[in-house]
C-alpha cells in the first residue's frame, strides 16, 4: 500500500503526516507513507485544498486534518 500526504508544508500538513504515520503503526499496515510537497505532484491529483490524503492513487479527502482514528478506519 502506498500512502501519500499532500501538502505544501504548513502546520496542518505536518500534523496530518504525523497522524498518518501513527495510524499505520497502530494498525500494523504494510504501507509506505510519503510526504508530497512539490506543487506539480499535488496538482496531478486535482487537489486544491491541502492537506490531502491519497491511498494507492485515490484521493481520500482534502482540506482537513484527519485524526489517527479516522485514518485507521480508512486503512482497514
Amino acid at each position, binding site marked *: 500500500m502506498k500512502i501519500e500526504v499532500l*501538502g*505544501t*508544508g*504548513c502546520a*496542518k*500538513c505536518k500534523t496530518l503526516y504525523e497522524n498518518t504515520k501513527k495510524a499505520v503503526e497502530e494498525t500494523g499496515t504494510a504501507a509506505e507513507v510519503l510526504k508530497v510537497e512539490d*506543487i*506539480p505532484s*499535488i*496538482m*496531478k*491529483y*486535482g*487537489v*486544491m*485544498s*491541502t492537506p490531502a490524503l491519497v491511498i494507492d492513487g*485515490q*484521493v*481520500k*479527502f*482534502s*482540506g*482537513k*486534518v484527519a*485524526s489517527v482514528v479516522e485514518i485507521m478506519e480508512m486503512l482497514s
Partner: protein
Amino acid sequence: MLKTFADYFVFQVVGLDAKSRLGGALDFFVYDTVKIFLLLTTIVYVVAVIRSYFSPERTRRILSHNREYVGNVLAALLGIVTPFCSCSAVPLFIGFVESGIPLGVTFSFLVSSPMVNEVALIMLWGLFGWKIALTYVGSGVVVAIVAGMVIGRLRMERHVQDYVWEIKVGAAEMQEQTFREKLDYAAGYTVGLLKKIWPYVIIGIGLGAFIHGYAPEDLLVRYAGRDNPLAVPLAVLIGVPLYSNAAGIVPVVQALMEKGLPIGTVLAFMMAVTALSLPEAVILKNVLKTRLLATFFGIVAAAIVIVGYLFNAIL
C-alpha cells in the same frame, strides 16, 4: 442576560465601582469574552457544516463555466462560503487558472475569501446589529468584484510565474462525505479553530476593554476622526502588518467606534487587516511575479480606501 451576569460579577463579586475606569474596562472584558465565545462556538460550527457543501473543487467547476463579469460576481460570492486556508492559496490559484477561469475572476475569489470572513460577519452582527454586518459583507463583495475586474482588464497573464502554466491538473475523484461525516468534520473544525484563535480573541477583547476604559475620547477623534482626511489611508496602512484573526480585531473595532471613530475608517482598518496580510503576500509570491503581486495589493488597498471614504460620507 449576559450583561446582567457581567455586571453582577464585576460590581458585586469583585466589588468594583461601576463608574470607575477599571470597573468599566473589566465589565466590558467579561461581557465581551463570554458573549464572543458563545457566538463563536455556535456560529463557527454552523458555518463549517454549510462549508462542507462547498469544496474548492466544486467552486472551481462552477466558475469554469463562467466568463468575466458574471464570473467575478459569482467568484466574490463563492469566496464567502468556500473554505480555504492561506496555505492552500498556491494549489488553489493554479487549479483555478488551469481550468480556464480568467485571472480576474480568480482574483475576485482570492480577495473575497479572506476579506468577507464569516466569523467577523457574525461578530459584527452580534456587537453592532445587522446594518453594519451587511455593510461589511456588501462592501467586501464589491471590493472583490471591482478589484478582480480591474486586474482582468489589465491583461497581466504574463506576470504569473511561468511554471504555473506548465502544470497539468488532474481530475480528482473524491469520495462524497456522508452527512454524519460532515457534522463530525464541523465539530472538529470548530474545536481546532477555537484552540487556535482563543489567544487572539482574548488579546483583542483586552485591547478593546483598555481602549473602552482608558483611551481619552477626544484624542482618538482628534487624530482619526471625521475631520482628518488622511485617517482612512492611514487606517489601511496600519492594518496591513497587523496580521490578526478577524475574531481578534472585532472587539478593538467595537471599542474604536464607541470612542467616536467614523464607520468607514473602522471598516477600512478591519478590511486591511484581513485582506492585505504580509504572510499572504509571501505565499502568493510563489505564483505571481512581483509586478502582479504589487498591482493586486495596490488595487485592493485603493478599493478599501474608497469604501472607507464612501461610508464616512454616507453613514
